[in-house]
């Protein structure tokens, strides 16, 4: 037995030595980030998830990007001009090259955009149409594609994008879009090298060899479900600003494993799960990031009880948002103060929309009970039972459980029945209007309050609660026709005020992410909209 044990020990030691300093070794400054999800698509035309956005942005620049503080700055664009009618945007490009030596030209943008708009499986192509950038001709082409027509890039000649020469890109819009430049940070508007992509066909962007880089890093390894390795791109036009040599993503679904790897020093940045927050919240490495997702209670306005405004006000005043974010979620989430999250959009004064529009509603049990009594009287009831629809994953699950106890405590006579569903079912039930109260969320498509506010317009397909207000619709119309950015901004603030006073929704919280970051790593920039994490400015001591 002893012999066997000693043989096993020797084997273990031998194996543990194998490969030390072997082919996996990287030179220079390396930052390793643990991620729960792998990249789903490296093709900017198809990517829809945050992780894909992050890695695509690390290797390919768009026209515009966000600085550390979230402000919009030029990326591949050297400069741009907007015509007086705001319908023609002309971008001139910097001198930049793809990693195969080709110059990055305006044609790469024209090709990429036409490629995206004709492909039905480009899920975010709607951002080209009137739900986003309003590029001239986009809606017509999208309608044909979604009607089942098979089109190619050559059929997209009517799309309002044109390379005037190698360095000049002209974009024509169907209507004025004040946030057009900020949309250019979204990967779906990034360039694609036509010759390279066409040569590879359906294998384009499926492996490191089948991708070109014109960004801060180059993709060298992509082992699906395990590891992504990037190295600094020396031919990047802004290579002087990139301080680290290697950026590595390790993919692990198990947060406790990535935290163990962080403790062991092999990972520099990891997210924390809610059960680990208490253990680490006082550690020096603890940090929180703010995400753009806003969770809110949506009321079915066609429901016989919830059409009563006093009832909706009672529910809204009974929610203790502060207790929820500070004592239940504890991950840096913010209280939901309106129908636009913090850090989403900056107005003409340079202030955040939320800061200017103010905070709506906070816990007031007395007011809540007064409104509840009034509602019960108007409805001819003595007590009330409502069903809360929510999904079976955090943070929705813990938040919904908290909301149930909080509402029942502050509104005696109210019973909240819980209806937990998988996310897909939750959305399906909302779509067909089979809900009373639902805890739901929305993530921004672009850095402007309208990405949220238009949801509540009469007839909007995401207006699941069927809220309708002529005053609100009018205010949004006023904003879209406003002569100046200042007037537009003011109209949007007023529109949100009308919405919040009508309470078709109760804003609950804006998602935060608790994380651990090594003391010697700085500059992992996080943003509430667009690309969630940007690594260009990462530094390691």
């Amino acid at each position: 037995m002893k012999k066997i044990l000693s043989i096993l020990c020797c084997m273990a030691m031998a194996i543990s030595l194998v490969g030390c300093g072997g082919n996996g070794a990287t030179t220079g400054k390396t930052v390793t980030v643990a991620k729960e999800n792998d990249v789903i698509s490296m093709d900017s035309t198809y990517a829809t998830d945050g992780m894909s956005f992050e890695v695509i942005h690390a290797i390919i620049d768009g026209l515009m990007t966000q600085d550390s503080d979230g402000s919009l700055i030029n990326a591949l664009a050297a400069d741009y001009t907007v015509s007086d009618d705001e319908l023609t945007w002309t971008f001139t490009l910097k001198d930049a090259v793809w990693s195969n030596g080709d110059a990055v030209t305006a044609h790469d943008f024209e090709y990429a955009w036409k490629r995206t708009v004709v492909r039905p499986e480009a899920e975010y192509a709607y951002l080209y149409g009137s739900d986003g950038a309003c590029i001239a001709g986009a809606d017509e082409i999208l309608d044909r594609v979604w009607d089942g027509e098979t089109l190619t890039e050559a059929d997209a000649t009517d799309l309002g994008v044109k390379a005037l020469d190698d360095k000049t890109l002209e974009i024509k819009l169907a209507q004025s879009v004040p946030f057009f430049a900020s949309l250019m940070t979204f990967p779906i508007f990034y360039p694609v090298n036509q010759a390279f992509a066409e040569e590879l066909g359906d294998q384009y962007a499926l492996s490191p060899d089948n991708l070109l880089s014109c960004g801060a890093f180059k993709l060298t390894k992509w082992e699906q479900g395990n590891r992504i390795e990037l190295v600094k791109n020396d031919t990047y036009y802004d290579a002087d600003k990139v301080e680290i040599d290697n950026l590595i993503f390790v993919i692990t679904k198990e947060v406790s494993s990535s935290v163990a790897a962080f403790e062991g020093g092999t990972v520099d940045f990891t997210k924390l799960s809610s059960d680990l927050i208490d253990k680490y919240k006082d550690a020096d490495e603890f940090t929180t990031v703010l995400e753009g997702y806003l969770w809110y209670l949506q009321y079915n306005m066609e429901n016989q009880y919830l059409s009563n405004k006093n009832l909706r006000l009672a529910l809204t005043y009974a929610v203790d948002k502060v207790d929820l974010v500070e004592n239940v979620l504890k991950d840096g989430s913010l209280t939901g103060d309106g129908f636009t999250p913090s850090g989403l959009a900056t107005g003409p004064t340079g202030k955040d929309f939320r800061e200017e529009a103010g905070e709506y509603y906070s816990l007031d049990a007395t007011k809540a009970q007064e409104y509840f009594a009034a509602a019960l009287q108007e409805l001819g009831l003595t007590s009330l039972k409502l069903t809360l629809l929510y999904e079976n994953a955090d943070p929705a699950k813990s938040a919904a459980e908290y909301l149930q106890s909080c509402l029942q405590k502050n509104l005696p006579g109210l019973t909240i029945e819980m209806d937990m569903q998988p996310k897909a079912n939750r959305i399906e039930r909302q779509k067909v209007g089979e809900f009373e109260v639902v805890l739901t969320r929305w993530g921004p498509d672009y850095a402007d309050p309208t990405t949220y506010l238009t949801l509540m317009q009469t007839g909007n397909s995401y207006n699941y609660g069927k809220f309708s207000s002529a005053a609100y619709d009018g205010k949004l119309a006023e904003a879209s026709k406003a002569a100046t950015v200042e007037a537009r901004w003011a109209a949007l603030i007023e529109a949100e005020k009308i919405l919040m006073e009508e309470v078709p929704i109760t804003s609950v919280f804006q998602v935060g992410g608790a994380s651990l970051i090594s003391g010697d790593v700085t500059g992992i920039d996080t943003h509430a909209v667009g690309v969630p994490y940007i690594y260009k400015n990462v530094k390691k001591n």
Partner: protein
Amino acid sequence: MNKSTMKYIGKRLLISAITLVIIVAVLFLMLKLMPGTPFNDEKLTEAQKLAIYAKYGLDQPFFVQFFNYMKNMLTGDFGVSFGIVRNMQVSDLVGPRILISFGIGIAAVILGTVIGVLLGIYAALHKNTLADTLATIFSVLGVSVPSFVLGLLLLLLLGVTIPVFPILYESSHPLRSSVLPVIALSFGVIANVARFTRSEMISVLASDYIALAEAKGLDRTTIIRKHAFRNTLIPVITILGPILVNLMTGSMVLEQIFSIPGLGRLLVEGITVNDYNVVLAVSFLYSVLYVVMMLIIDISYGIIDPRIRLGKGD
């Protein structure tokens, strides 16, 4: 091999092929009945969804889809992934993972069997002593403690406290990265094999032919090595088949803990995002393994013992 054996094997092969077709059909149907689709993004409009279905042929009637899938499958085309890596060939996605899962599974079975057999024999030879009791306790623990608990324990001990092995799987160091998961997985095998070996050994040692060998004056080592050991192993080998398939297909939980890019995780992720083609391909692979294993066992029984070939005229 005589004619009737060939005929028997032929019949078995045919049944296996039919079984696999039925399995794919049932899987196909079950996937279609699953709520949701691979394209669940809330922001997709109905028209856009329909256009995407058309692009991937998901708008076709069930039987057309099934027929196309079977047709492509026979040419080695398992379709593309929708939600794991958009548009990647499923074979490109599954291929690298097969090696990893098979490697770890087979290593765990070999390690577990060797230790298990030694432990079982040792316990049998020292029946009703302290060593036997300890071995039994170990076996009970091995069977009842889930591999992920052991995995986490090993991870803490040899990954964090004494950092000998990597915490997260590193494909550049597959050997080092596999040590802890292999040990964690082999525990169940050790326990099962040891228990089985012990009881077999005890019953073999009590049999008449061992008594005869002893009477003939053979020394104990020869009796155990030449007579008892071999006869103990035959039943042990029969339980190894299912264990082997089970471990080769990847332990989802251990893969999660050690972040091993294996088959188990791929299947579960495929199910969560409704990635039909990935789920089909991985489940099909599992089915093939089981069917082949059953086929081998059936045929080997048939060869060893002709009485198993039932049916007249064989």
